[in-house]
């Protein structure tokens, strides 16, 4: 697999390292010469000092044979232009963009760049998990399948001491894992009796987190 990464910052570098460790070919396009030097010292000759939204540079990078194209610069306009060119001019199979400002995600989607990761959401959710005070946290969004993976906490109240089949949890929430303090995590059955403080990993339809949260609060 040949991947092109635009942006040689912390994220671009970490990605490149992952690709290389898994035996894939990778090229980072980075506009700052000093950063390119660092990349060379760290990862070897895997960078091109140029602008990732410049067609001439992309051609030099061999974009025609790229399988994956990823834009992770701190500028949304640069990421957008680079991805539009990769997808619509060079027909790269997988085009993925980081969207720094979450408000821009729908603009990218509207312009045909629908494979995006927003730079705030995942970090926000991770911090929420660590605080331990949020009843529902988003773990992952399977955008193409319109499903979300969430982690919920069973509160004190009627839901505790109820078996799953008698609980009021929405029927379309698939509970795939139960995590209980001090015990082995298990795949729950309809007979599993919930306890206050249990954590449940649930697969739910996109956008239905609110109704799950409401059912928990009841």
């Amino acid at each position, binding site marked *: 697999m040949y991947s092109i990464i635009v942006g040689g910052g912390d994220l671009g570098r970490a990605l490149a390292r992952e690709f290389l460790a898994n035996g894939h070919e990778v090229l980072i396009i980075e506009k700052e010469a000093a950063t390119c030097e660092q990349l060379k010292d760290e990862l070897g000759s895997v960078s091109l000092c140029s602008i990732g939204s*410049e067609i001439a540079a992309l051609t030099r990078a061999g974009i025609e044979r790229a399988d994956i194209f990823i834009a992770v610069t701190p500028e949304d*306009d640069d990421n957008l232009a680079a991805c539009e060119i990769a997808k619509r001019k060079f027909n790269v199979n997988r085009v993925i963009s980081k969207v720094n400002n979450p408000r821009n995600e729908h603009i990218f989607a509207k312009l045909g760049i629908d494979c995006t990761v927003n730079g705030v959401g995942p970090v926000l959710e991770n911090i929420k998990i660590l605080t331990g005070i949020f009843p529902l946290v988003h773990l992952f969004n399977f955008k193409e399948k319109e499903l979300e993976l969430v982690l919920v906490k069973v509160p004190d109240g009627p839901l505790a001491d109820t078996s799953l089949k008698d609980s009021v949890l929405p029927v379309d929430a698939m509970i795939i894992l139960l995590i209980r303090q001090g015990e082995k995590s298990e795949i729950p059955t309809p007979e599993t009796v919930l306890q206050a403080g249990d954590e449940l990993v649930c697969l739910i339809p996109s956008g239905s987190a609110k109704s799950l949260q409401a059912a928990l609060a009841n």
Partner: protein
Amino acid sequence: MNIIIMGCGRVGAELARLFAAEEHKVTIIDVDANSFDVLLTDFGGTTLLGDATDEEMLEKAGITEADAFIAVTRDDDKNGMAAQIAKQIFNVPKVICRMYDPLQAEFFASLGLEAISPVLLFVQLVKEKIRDN
């Protein structure tokens, strides 16, 4: 007409002055407050400090009422993004953007954007002048 211009450099400022003098309602946006210094004191339009690739800033500039949007910052990608937002999200009837890179201008034109490359225009002009000799 209601015209929004993004980027108050030489071209943006000149366009703003011209349209305002023709009694059009002009709003010019730039991220640098000092950039507005090039506008003369008798400029009859509105200046707005901010980034026009931000949807909220465009709404503040009155994009929903705009007849034309012109993106002329010195950054091709910013011009492209703002112009596409104006055209695809807000359906502004006339959208024009500048792209120095002729290849990028050609690509975005193929997507239906009115992207003009001043590099290409100048090159053509010089070519014609040399040929005329």
